C-alpha cells in the first residue's frame, strides 16, 4: 500500500515522460492567478552574462581611440564573441545553473543579433528614430552578470612560466551580479590562480561549485526588494534652454528643489533616500525605495512613480515636465521650457 502511494507520488512528478515535449507540460493558470501577487515575478528582472573589460582586453577587443584630443574606450563585443571559443561554453554553464532554478537568463549574443534584426526591420518599416531611441537600442539587462577571466597563458611573462610542471595553467575568474540602475554589486564569485589544464572546464567546475551561494545572494536581493521596496535612482533635470531653475522660487513660496525633496521624503518606503546632487539644473537621489504594487495588485514601477511626481508638479506648481523613466530602476523627470 505504502509502496503504491510512493510510486503514485513519483509518477505524478515525472509521469509525463511518454508524452511529447509540449503535451507533457502541465499548469493551472486559475490557481496561479488566484494566488498572491509576487512583485519580483510580476516585473521579472532581466539577467544577462556580459563579458567584462578585462576579458575584452585579453582578446584585443578593447582599444583606445583618440578623436579631437580626447581618448575614448572602444569595445567590440561582437568581435569578442567570435574570437573567444570558451565564452559560449562558460556562459552556457551559468545559464544552465540558472535554468535549474527556473530563472532563464537572457542570452547576450542572441540579444545582439536581435538588435541588428530589429534595426533592419525598423528601417524597412520606416519607423521614426530619434537619438535617444537609438541610444537605448542596446542590451539593457536589469542585472548584469559581468564575467572576467584570464589564464597565465593569456599574459606574456618574462619572469615565470605560463605552465607548471604538470602542464597546468593558473586560472582566475570573477563573476559579479550588478544592479544596472544603482550599480550595486548584489553577488560575486571569484577565484584566483586555480590550477587546471583546460580553462573552460576549470572555470565551469569552480563556478558550478560556487553557484548555490551566488544564487542565494541574488535571491536575498529579491527578498530585500519585496521587504523594503525597489531600490531606484531619481533624477530631476532641467532641459536645455529652459527658463526655470530648480533654485527658483515656486508659487508655494519655497524653491522647486525644496518642494521636490519634500515629495521624495513622503513618497519613498519609510522615507528611504539619499540626496546626491543639488544644482540649479539637477537634483539627484540614490537609494530611494519605492513600493512595488498598487492596491489592486497591479505593478507600481518607476514610470508610475515619475508619473505621480509629474502630475503633482504640473498641478501644484504649474511646471511643464516630461517623464523619461527607463527600465525598473531609473527615474528621470525633465523640466521643460515653460
Amino acid at each position: 500500500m505504502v509502496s503504491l502511494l510512493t510510486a503514485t507520488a513519483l509518477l505524478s512528478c515525472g509521469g509525463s515522460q511518454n508524452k511529447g515535449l509540449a503535451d507533457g507540460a502541465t499548469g493551472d493558470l486559475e490557481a496561479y492567478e488566484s494566488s498572491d501577487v509576487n512583485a519580483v515575478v510580476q516585473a521579472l528582472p532581466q539577467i544577462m552574462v556580459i563579458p567584462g573589460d578585462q576579458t575584452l582586453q585579453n582578446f584585443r577587443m578593447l582599444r583606445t581611440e583618440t578623436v579631437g584630443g580626447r581618448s575614448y574606450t572602444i569595445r567590440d563585443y561582437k568581435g569578442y564573441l567570435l574570437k573567444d571559443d570558451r565564452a559560449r561554453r562558460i556562459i552556457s554553464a551559468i545559464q544552465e545553473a540558472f535554468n535549474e532554478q527556473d530563472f532563464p537568463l537572457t542570452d547576450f549574443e542572441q540579444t545582439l543579433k536581435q538588435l541588428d534584426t530589429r534595426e533592419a526591420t525598423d528601417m524597412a518599416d520606416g519607423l521614426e528614430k530619434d537619438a535617444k531611441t537609438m541610444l537605448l537600442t542596446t542590451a539593457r539587462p536589469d542585472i548584469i552578470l559581468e564575467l572576467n577571466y584570464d589564464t597565465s597563458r593569456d599574459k606574456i611573462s618574462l619572469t615565470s612560466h605560463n605552465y607548471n610542471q604538470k602542464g597546468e595553467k593558473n586560472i582566475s575568474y570573477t563573476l559579479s551580479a550588478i544592479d544596472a540602475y544603482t550599480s550595486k554589486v548584489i553577488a560575486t564569485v571569484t577565484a584566483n590562480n586555480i590550477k587546471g589544464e583546460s580553462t573552460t572546464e576549470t572555470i565551469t567546475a569552480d563556478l558550478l561549485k560556487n553557484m548555490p551561494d551566488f544564487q542565494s545572494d541574488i535571491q536575498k536581493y529579491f527578498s530585500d526588494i519585496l521587504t523594503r521596496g525597489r531600490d531606484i535612482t531619481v533624477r530631476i533635470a532641467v532641459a536645455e534652454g529652459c527658463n526655470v531653475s530648480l533654485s527658483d522660487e515656486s508659487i508655494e513660496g519655497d524653491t522647486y528643489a525644496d518642494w521636490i525633496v519634500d515629495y521624495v521624503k513622503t513618497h519613498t518606503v519609510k522615507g528611504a533616500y539619499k540626496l546626491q546632487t543639488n544644482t540649479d539644473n539637477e537634483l539627484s537621489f540614490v537609494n530611494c525605495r519605492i513600493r512595488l504594487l498598487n492596491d489592486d495588485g497591479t505593478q507600481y514601477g518607476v514610470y508610475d512613480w515619475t508619473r505621480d511626481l509629474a502630475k503633482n508638479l504640473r498641478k501644484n506648481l504649474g511646471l511643464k515636465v516630461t517623464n523619461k523613466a527607463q527600465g525598473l530602476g531609473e527615474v528621470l523627470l525633465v523640466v521643460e521650457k515653460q
Partner: protein
Amino acid sequence: MKTAHTLLYICGIAAAMTLTDCTNGQKTETTGKKFNPTERTSSMTGSQREEALAAKRAALDVNIDSILYGHGVRFAIVEPKTGGDITQEIADRISMKMLQIASQNGISGVGSYNFVLGTEIAQTGRTATGTAPQKMTVNYELTFKVMNTLTGDVYATAVQTVTGVGNSFAEASRNAVKEIKNTPEMQKMLQTASQRITQWYNDNLQVIRNQVEKAEGEGDYALALAILGSIPEQATTAYRYVGEKQGTLLKGMLHKQAADMLAEMEALLASSGDEFNPAVGAYFGLIPTDCPEHATAQKLYAEYEKKCHARRDALEAKAERDEQAARELEKLKMLYDHESELATIEADKIKTKYTSMASAKAATAQASANTRPHGLFGSLGYAISGTFDRIFKVADTAGGFLSEKLGIGGEGEE
C-alpha cells in the same frame, strides 16, 4: 511489526520529499495581495469625447496659412565649411536639409544672389557609451542665419542643438544631420527673414536697378534676369520694376543669343534631314525677327518645311498604295478561303464513304473469323464441314443446272 512501522515511516518521508521536489523550489511569497486590476475610467461623455477628439485633430493639422508667408522670397543655400567632423558628405547633407526646411516654409527657390541661408557648426560633445553594443554620440550646435550678401546684414538667426547616435563616430555624425528639424524657431527665423527681405527690396529699388543695369550693360542678360527673378511679389514697389524691365532684358538676351540659336538650328537640320523635329521650330522661334540671323533662319526653315512636306506626301501616297494592295489581297484571300472550304466538304464526303465501306468489310471479316473453330478437333471438324459445304454447293449448282436444263422446279421453291 516494528520493522513494518519503520518502513512505513521511511516511505512516507520519501513520498513527502518527492512531492516537495516536484514544486522545483517555487516558494510562493505571501504578500497578501491578490491581482484584481481595476479598469481605467473616464469622466468624459460621448459628445465631450467627440468634441475633444475634433479639437485634437485640428491641432495636429498643418496650418496652410503659416507656410505661405514666404511665397516668392528666394535664398541661396550656402554649404557649411568642411573640416574636422564635417566631411563633404556631411556638408552636402546639411545643405539638403536646409533646402528642405526652406521649401517647407514657402521659400520659393534658391536662385537669389543677394540673400543666403547658411549655418555655422560647432561640435559641443562626443561620447562613447558603456553599453553593449557600444554607441557613439556626437553633439553639434548649429547656428542658422539669413544674410544679405550686399550689406552683410544678418536678418534672422536660429540655433539648433542636435545629437547623433551611431555604431561609430562617423555614423553618429551622419545621424546627427537627420536630427535637424523644421522647428518653430526655424520657422520664426525664416518668417522674419522673409519679411525683412521683402522690405529690403522695396526700400532698395535703386540698388536693384543698378545691379540689373550693370549686368545689362555688360551683356550679362541672364544675371540681370536672375536678379529680377529674385524679387518677391510681396515687394510690390520693386515688383513693378520687374514688369517694366523683364521684356527688354528678354529681348536683349534673345538678340545676343541669335547667332548661337542659328548655329544650334543648323546642327539640328543637318541631323534631322527631311524628318520632322519640333526642336528646329523651337530654335527658329527664339531668333527675333529683327535680327540679321532671322533671314537665314527663315530661309533654312522654309526649305526644311518643304522637305518635310515632300516626305509627308510621299509617305501618304505610299500609304494609299499599301492600303489598295491590302484590299486586293483581302479579296483573294476570301476567294481562296471559300474554295478551300468547298474542297474540304467534298473531301469529307469521300472520306466518310470510304470509311463506311472499310468498316463494313472489316465487320464481315471479323464475323467470318469468329465462326471458325479453334483447336485440333475444331479445325478437323471445320475442314470436314467445309468439304461437305463445298460438296453441297457443287450439288446445288449441278442440281440447279440440271433443273434449269430439264425444266424441273418452279417459283417459290427453294
